[in-house]
């Protein structure tokens, strides 16, 4: 049964659920492209090298930063789900979700800095 109000959508843990779901969907859409790009090596080093040179474009680096965030936030959100389901209940669920989101932002920022510096 659907809830009658949308008040729950302002809850931090609902937002954490939504971020986990959308990041998972985005990664599922990206995965075939990632596999196709790596598969270029079948045709030889030159084709993969051509692709790697294309990824040096700043806009691609920005997109890659987004992908690192998606990967990190989905992994950390997934660990949060595994902790909830398998370990004794903790009262600080919102804090754990906040830590997961913050750590993913730090991971993406570190990646961005590593490619621009």
């Amino acid at each position, binding site marked *: 049964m659907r809830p009658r109000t949308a008040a729950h959508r302002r809850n931090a843990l609902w937002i954490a659920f939504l971020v986990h*779901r959308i990041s*998972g*969907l985005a*990664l*599922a859409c990206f*995965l*075939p492209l*990632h*596999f*196709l*790009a*790596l*598969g*270029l*090596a*079948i045709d030889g*080093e*030159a084709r*993969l*090298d051509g692709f*790697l040179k294309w990824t040096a474009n700043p806009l691609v680096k920005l997109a*890659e930063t987004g992908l*690192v965030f998606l*990967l*990190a936030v989905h*992994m950390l959100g*997934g*660990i949060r*789900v*595994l902790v909830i*389901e398998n370990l004794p209940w903790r009262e600080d669920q919102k804090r754990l979700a906040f830590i997961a989101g913050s750590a993913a932002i730090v*991971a993406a920022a*570190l*990646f961005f800095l*590593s*490619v621009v510096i």
Partner: protein
Amino acid sequence: MNVRLYILQRATAAIMAPLVLAHLAIIYYATSKGLSAADILGRTRGSIGWAAYYGLFVVAASTHGAIGVRVVAAEWAGLRGQRLDLLMWGVGLGLVALGLRAVAAVVLP
């Protein structure tokens, strides 16, 4: 989602957590060093370790992704029954095929 799919979803998540951490470390290393295709393939081609790592990663990610897409299609698109199973198997087998092809491309000598 039945119990078998639920367990598979959680098991692949647990398997992938350390694999993703290693993948992130590899991404940082490769991009910060500006590795070329020759540098990357020189490390991966002929390596049983990289073949096992990426092979396991591809199978776990494809299984996890296919079950995840199934859940979202059921809850957000209202898909049910055989269509839902077809979608899951299509996504899963498609990802495994593309993924293992990519693994073969980077590890086979």
